[in-house]
Protein backbone atom coordinates (compact mmCIF):
# COMPACT_ATOMS: atom_id res chain seq x y z
CA UNK A 1 0.00 0.00 0.00
CA UNK A 2 2.77 2.37 1.07
CA UNK A 3 4.80 1.40 -1.98
CA UNK A 4 1.83 2.10 -4.23
CA UNK A 5 1.39 5.56 -2.72
CA UNK A 6 5.10 6.29 -3.10
CA UNK A 7 5.05 5.18 -6.74
CA UNK A 8 2.05 7.39 -7.31
CA UNK A 9 3.86 10.40 -5.81
CA UNK A 10 6.98 9.62 -7.84
CA UNK A 11 4.83 9.33 -10.94
CA UNK A 12 3.35 12.76 -10.31
CA UNK A 13 6.72 14.35 -9.66
CA UNK A 14 8.07 12.82 -12.83
CA UNK A 15 5.01 13.93 -14.77
CA UNK A 16 5.51 17.48 -13.61
CA UNK A 17 9.23 17.32 -14.40
CA UNK A 18 8.39 16.02 -17.86
CA UNK A 19 5.87 18.84 -18.24
CA UNK A 20 8.58 21.26 -17.13
CA UNK A 21 11.07 20.03 -19.68
CA UNK A 22 8.49 20.08 -22.46
CA UNK A 23 7.30 23.54 -21.50
CA UNK A 24 10.87 24.84 -21.46
CA UNK A 25 11.46 23.35 -24.90
CA UNK A 26 8.22 24.67 -26.28
CA UNK A 27 8.86 28.12 -24.85
CA UNK A 28 12.40 28.22 -26.23
CA UNK A 29 11.81 26.56 -29.58
CA UNK A 30 9.13 28.66 -31.28
CA UNK A 31 11.52 31.43 -32.20
CA UNK A 32 13.62 28.90 -34.13
CA UNK A 33 10.83 26.59 -35.30
CA UNK A 34 8.49 29.21 -36.67
CA UNK A 35 9.21 31.46 -39.60
CA UNK A 36 6.58 33.91 -38.38
CA UNK A 37 7.69 35.31 -35.02
CA UNK A 38 4.23 36.69 -34.24
CA UNK A 39 2.73 33.22 -34.80
CA UNK A 40 5.42 31.82 -32.48
CA UNK A 41 4.32 34.20 -29.70
CA UNK A 42 0.69 33.14 -30.14
CA UNK A 43 1.82 29.49 -29.83
CA UNK A 44 3.73 30.34 -26.65
CA UNK A 45 0.60 31.76 -25.03
CA UNK A 46 -1.44 28.73 -26.12
CA UNK A 47 1.11 26.27 -24.73
CA UNK A 48 1.60 28.25 -21.50
CA UNK A 49 -2.16 28.31 -21.01
CA UNK A 50 -2.30 24.51 -21.45
CA UNK A 51 0.54 24.03 -18.96
CA UNK A 52 -1.20 26.25 -16.39
CA UNK A 53 -4.48 24.35 -16.83
CA UNK A 54 -2.92 20.86 -16.68
CA UNK A 55 -0.64 21.67 -13.73
CA UNK A 56 -3.37 23.23 -11.57
CA UNK A 57 -5.77 20.38 -12.34
CA UNK A 58 -3.01 17.94 -11.30
CA UNK A 59 -2.61 19.89 -8.04
CA UNK A 60 -6.34 19.44 -7.33
CA UNK A 61 -6.07 15.71 -8.01
CA UNK A 62 -2.97 15.36 -5.82
CA UNK A 63 -4.75 17.16 -2.93
CA UNK A 64 -7.82 14.95 -3.26
CA UNK A 65 -5.63 11.82 -3.11
CA UNK A 66 -3.86 13.08 0.03
CA UNK A 67 -0.51 13.50 -1.71
CA UNK A 68 -0.25 17.16 -0.66
CA UNK A 69 -1.57 18.91 2.47
CA UNK A 70 -3.35 22.25 3.01
CA UNK A 71 -0.19 24.35 3.30
CA UNK A 72 1.34 22.73 0.22
CA UNK A 73 -1.88 23.37 -1.68
CA UNK A 74 -1.62 27.03 -0.64
CA UNK A 75 1.93 27.22 -2.09
CA UNK A 76 0.73 25.83 -5.43
CA UNK A 77 -2.28 28.14 -5.43
CA UNK A 78 -0.11 31.24 -5.05
CA UNK A 79 2.23 30.09 -7.84
CA UNK A 80 -0.74 29.23 -10.05
CA UNK A 81 -2.35 32.63 -9.46
CA UNK A 82 0.95 34.34 -10.34
CA UNK A 83 1.12 32.42 -13.65
CA UNK A 84 -2.53 33.23 -14.32
CA UNK A 85 -1.88 36.97 -13.90
CA UNK A 86 1.26 36.75 -16.09
CA UNK A 87 -0.67 34.86 -18.74
CA UNK A 88 -3.41 37.50 -18.85
CA UNK A 89 -0.79 40.28 -19.05
CA UNK A 90 1.08 38.43 -21.84
CA UNK A 91 -2.10 37.85 -23.82
CA UNK A 92 -2.98 41.54 -23.54
CA UNK A 93 0.55 42.64 -24.48
CA UNK A 94 0.63 40.31 -27.49
CA UNK A 95 -2.78 41.51 -28.59
CA UNK A 96 -1.46 45.09 -28.41
CA UNK A 97 1.66 44.10 -30.36
CA UNK A 98 -0.41 42.46 -33.11
CA UNK A 99 -2.45 45.64 -33.39
CA UNK A 100 0.71 47.75 -33.53
CA UNK A 101 -0.06 49.40 -30.18
CA UNK A 102 3.03 48.17 -28.33
CA UNK A 103 6.67 47.40 -29.17
CA UNK A 104 8.50 44.08 -29.35
CA UNK A 105 10.66 44.99 -26.35
CA UNK A 106 7.57 45.67 -24.22
CA UNK A 107 6.13 42.29 -25.25
CA UNK A 108 9.45 40.49 -24.62
CA UNK A 109 9.59 41.82 -21.06
CA UNK A 110 6.11 40.50 -20.23
CA UNK A 111 6.81 37.11 -21.87
CA UNK A 112 10.06 36.82 -19.95
CA UNK A 113 8.17 37.29 -16.67
CA UNK A 114 5.67 34.63 -17.77
CA UNK A 115 8.49 32.13 -18.41
CA UNK A 116 9.97 32.84 -14.95
CA UNK A 117 6.58 32.41 -13.29
CA UNK A 118 5.95 29.16 -15.13
CA UNK A 119 9.34 27.82 -14.07
CA UNK A 120 8.57 28.80 -10.47
CA UNK A 121 5.21 27.00 -10.57
CA UNK A 122 6.87 23.82 -11.79
CA UNK A 123 9.63 24.20 -9.22
CA UNK A 124 7.00 24.36 -6.45
CA UNK A 125 6.60 20.60 -6.84
CA UNK A 126 10.24 20.04 -5.99
CA UNK A 127 10.09 22.38 -2.99
CA UNK A 128 6.91 20.85 -1.60
CA UNK A 129 7.89 17.22 -2.11
CA UNK A 130 11.43 17.52 -0.72
Amino acid sequence: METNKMMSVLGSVTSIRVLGVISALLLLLPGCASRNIKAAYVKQIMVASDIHRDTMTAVGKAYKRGMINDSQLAVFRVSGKTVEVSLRASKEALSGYLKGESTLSQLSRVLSVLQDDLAELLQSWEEVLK
Partner: protein
Amino acid sequence: MRYRPLVELIVSITLSVIQSLERNRGKRLDDMTDEELAEVLSGVIIEDTDDLIKKGMES
Protein backbone atom coordinates in the same frame (compact mmCIF):
# COMPACT_ATOMS: atom_id res chain seq x y z
CA MET B 1 12.32 5.37 -20.78
CA ARG B 2 9.47 4.16 -18.54
CA TYR B 3 7.77 7.51 -18.93
CA ARG B 4 8.18 7.72 -22.69
CA PRO B 5 4.45 7.06 -23.34
CA LEU B 6 3.61 9.92 -20.98
CA VAL B 7 6.01 12.26 -22.77
CA GLU B 8 4.49 11.29 -26.11
CA LEU B 9 0.99 11.82 -24.75
CA ILE B 10 1.72 15.33 -23.45
CA VAL B 11 3.48 16.33 -26.66
CA SER B 12 0.68 14.95 -28.79
CA ILE B 13 -2.01 16.77 -26.78
CA THR B 14 -0.18 20.08 -27.11
CA LEU B 15 0.47 19.64 -30.80
CA SER B 16 -3.09 18.51 -31.47
CA VAL B 17 -4.45 21.68 -29.87
CA ILE B 18 -2.30 23.82 -32.16
CA GLN B 19 -2.97 21.67 -35.21
CA SER B 20 -6.72 21.59 -34.65
CA LEU B 21 -6.79 25.36 -34.43
CA GLU B 22 -4.85 25.59 -37.66
CA ARG B 23 -7.02 22.94 -39.34
CA ASN B 24 -10.24 24.60 -38.30
CA ARG B 25 -9.13 27.79 -39.92
CA GLY B 26 -7.75 25.91 -42.92
CA LYS B 27 -4.51 27.80 -42.48
CA ARG B 28 -1.28 27.39 -40.50
CA LEU B 29 -0.57 29.98 -37.81
CA ASP B 30 2.66 30.79 -39.68
CA ASP B 31 0.64 31.87 -42.72
CA MET B 32 -1.83 34.06 -40.86
CA THR B 33 -2.04 37.82 -40.97
CA ASP B 34 -1.80 39.90 -37.79
CA GLU B 35 -5.59 40.26 -37.69
CA GLU B 36 -6.09 36.50 -37.97
CA LEU B 37 -3.48 35.84 -35.27
CA ALA B 38 -5.24 38.36 -33.01
CA GLU B 39 -8.47 36.47 -33.55
CA VAL B 40 -6.83 33.14 -32.65
CA LEU B 41 -5.25 34.74 -29.58
CA SER B 42 -8.60 36.08 -28.43
CA GLY B 43 -9.86 32.48 -28.42
CA VAL B 44 -7.17 31.32 -25.99
CA ILE B 45 -8.88 30.75 -22.67
CA ILE B 46 -6.97 31.48 -19.47
CA GLU B 47 -8.86 29.69 -16.73
CA ASP B 48 -9.18 30.73 -13.11
CA THR B 49 -6.62 28.91 -10.91
CA ASP B 50 -9.14 28.14 -8.15
CA ASP B 51 -11.61 26.72 -10.66
CA LEU B 52 -8.90 24.47 -12.11
CA ILE B 53 -7.89 23.14 -8.68
CA LYS B 54 -11.55 22.50 -7.92
CA LYS B 55 -11.96 20.71 -11.25
CA GLY B 56 -8.96 18.50 -10.38
CA MET B 57 -10.46 17.67 -6.97
CA GLU B 58 -13.76 16.70 -8.55
CA SER B 59 -12.29 14.54 -11.31
